[in-house]
């Protein structure tokens, strides 16, 4: 039951570490490969996990995680539930711009619209950005990797004059008023 802490370890020189959390393990490998291939200037370590907490075994060798990405597939309810429980194992320090949600198949017709709404509410309640990604096409994966890298570099402190907290105030998910009003019916 150990919390993952953002500042318990020293950062590496010119290194950014990203943790992809996905219960289904369908998308994270593809995304990890693309993220690594996209970035040429910074050492990017991608770490994959099905859920949090992370095992104690390699606690020592694990570098400082700069960005935690929760991948949620809207096609499955379990994906959302798993991300929700994993969130409990993150130190509050992470929610200052070091957490990001990535949803897939948001445009899928068969997905109930309520699921995207609930993910948005979750992201908004933690003041985190929410990205939509296309996981079926290589272009979609590349775009998702680009977006994650942009956030990662800021979160890892590699961009002068920008911090994760500053970026997250600009990019965090907000719930529009008409979704809120559904609660009052």
């Amino acid at each position: 039951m150990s919390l993952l802490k953002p500042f318990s370890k020293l950062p590496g020189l010119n290194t950014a570490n990203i943790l992809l959390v996905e219960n289904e393990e369908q998308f994270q490998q593809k995304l990890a490969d693309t993220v690594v291939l996209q970035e040429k200037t910074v050492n990017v370590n991608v770490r994959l996990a099905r859920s949090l907490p992370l095992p104690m075994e390699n606690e020592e060798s694990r570098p400082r995680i700069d960005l935690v990405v929760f991948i949620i597939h809207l096609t499955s309810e379990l994906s959302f539930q798993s991300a929700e429980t994993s969130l409990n194992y993150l130190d509050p320090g992470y929610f200052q711009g070091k957490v990001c949600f990535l949803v897939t198949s948001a445009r899928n017709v068969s997905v109930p619209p309520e699921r995207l709404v609930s993910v948005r509410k979750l992201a908004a309640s933690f003041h985190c950005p929410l990205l939509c990604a296309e996981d079926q096409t290589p272009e979609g994966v590349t775009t998702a990797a680009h977006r994650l890298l942009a956030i990662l570099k800021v979160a890892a402190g590699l961009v002068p004059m920008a911090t994760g907290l500053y970026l997250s105030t600009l990019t965090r998910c907000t719930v529009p008023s008409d979704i809120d009003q559904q609660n009052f019916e």
Partner: protein
Amino acid sequence: MMLYLTTFPYQDSSCIMGKRDVQIHFLSLLVLFFSVMEERNSTEETPRNNALAQRRSKSYRHSMRSCVEATHLTYTSGLLTALRIPRSRKAPKSRDITKQVDPDQVALLVKKEWQLSYVTPLYQFRHTQLKSYSKQLSAFIVSEKQQGLAIEVGQELGFKVNFSVVLGLAETDKDAETVFIQILSKQAFGAKDDAQKVVWSGWLTCVNGDLDYLRSLPLEFVSLPLFCTRGPESLTVLVKSWFEKTFDCCFGPLGINSTNLQWLASLWTGCHPTINIQYLKLVWTLPTLPPMDVTYTVHPQDAWELWDSMRQVDTTEDSISIDEVTGFINGLQAHFFRHFRIDLSAGSLMQISTALGSSHHSGKIKIASPNYIPTILQLLTECALLKMPI
């Protein structure tokens, strides 16, 4: 370029959510160069407000239409026209529908499987002109079928179309009356007394449509958002294209998503004390390789007891909230997990059936009992209204 992977074994094998930590290192040229501009661009692309944009455009387009109708630029608030996903519904009440509706017409609707579509409001549709519509549609079908043929061949070309009104299905005075369409084939060489065969049937309906939405429609438009069809696809396409040409509307497929299937399962289970539902069957598809279908049949009494235990949470008897519905489905899933160690929430719900009716994810519905028609049609009308690009 180096890429190496290390996998660590599961820490706890009994835990279904196994933990794994895979590491990918990438060592590249150590060039300290950051392009801040590029990052900004890519963060701006983030489509965070997808749903918002969609919803806004709905109400915007809608208010545009009302503006044109009113011939001067009136202000319509987006609130009036925005449709919302319902979070609670009234509990279904058994009601003898045959008292309001002609039993023969009810018999045409029930116990058949219908394919669902949504229709945008029909422009200048009049319930008084159904006879002329019958003639126009049959002429249209014949002419379309004859296209490309030098001479008239076969006996399939004789079609008779019947438009009729099903009075009494509408619940409020804003709902337009249901229209039933039948296409009968005429046998060219058959005796005149031969009963004509029904080759295609379909109906357009609106039951308890969103009142704010229906009120905001201009007078020339009749909203019958739900279109149910049964018969060969070629005829469905012809009927749809005739409607599109004549009433300036457009059709689209209407699927029933898993939330609505869960609603149907709960509504039907709730009917068990009055009408025996006999069984509750749920079909899930799990995203394994190859995909696995799980058919889960529940004894009606057990299903009802579970549903009833969920219902006790609620204080008001008359309405059902979405939380009770999810609670009910979660209960069923938890039971299944305890026995088979398969978490059904990872998959998607494809089909629901009871003795009262069945419904498929791809937009097929069958209503077996006439007593609960209004409840089911109300739910489907809501789906159609939410689905259509207003």
